[in-house]
């Protein structure tokens, strides 16, 4: 479900993740709401997955809406590399 190099954005509430999904889908960006991987703590248990090719647009859209994720990770082999910091 999460390929190597994919980004996994963790949000700090169900309302934020649902709003982020709606916003990104309205823009027809290729994202998917997924169960947050067990290795990554997520209060609401959900995350948004996207690939490198849409990263700029996804994060730009979220930033403009004040919906940046709490944490951002990149899948790297069997683990997740943290590349985001708490907002």
């Amino acid at each position: 479900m999460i390929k190597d190099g994919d980004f996994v954005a963790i949000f700090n509430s169900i309302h934020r993740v649902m709003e982020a999904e709606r916003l990104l889908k309205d823009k027809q960006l290729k994202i998917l709401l997924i169960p947050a991987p067990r290795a990554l703590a997520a209060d609401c248990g959900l995350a948004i997955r996207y690939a490198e090719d849409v990263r700029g647009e996804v994060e730009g859209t979220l930033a403009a809406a004040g919906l940046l994720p709490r944490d951002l990770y990149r899948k790297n082999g069997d683990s997740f590399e943290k590349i985001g910091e708490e907002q």
Partner: protein
Amino acid sequence: MNNLDVRGMACPLPVVQVKRALEAAQGAELRVLLDDGAPRENVKRFAQGRGYRVQEEQLEGGFAFTITGPGTPTAREAAPAAAVAAGPTVMLIGSDRMGDGPEDLGRLLMKNFIMTLLDLSELPDRIFFVNTGVLLAVEGSEVVETLNELGNRGVEVLSCGICLDFFKKKESLAAGGVTNMFTIAETMLNARSVLRP
């Protein structure tokens, strides 16, 4: 030795057929003829994941697997016989939403539930989709990829034909197969448990 030919079958049918044959074989050796590519990879992963040994042999226009067990029993299979009744574990998904409440939350929960199944070691034997549940198995659903992967792991994914017809989605089924109420009712009556998320 039992023999099975799944050549020409589209995924996940080869895995489903092999799963049934292994269950019926009760530990006896099984020889399977199958196509290269996804069927070969999926059947191998499924069998090895269950603790079976797989010997491959390349043939003209395909492969032959000799599958020998016994497989590693799952927790359910390892439970004392008296503790579990015979029959499959069936999941009946009668809606594209989980629980009562806001529609968007219900849809999100159902999607999340189905995707979470991939992380579990114990899977149902069959998942039936009825009513708006069938909308989860058609083109445009975000869980199609997940349902196909469940199929590759031996879960039979089946949608109610009447329901697909009602929603005019017969031509856009994208995961699993079509079934009828006779099969749904009979399977539920013979199931060791029926789960309704």
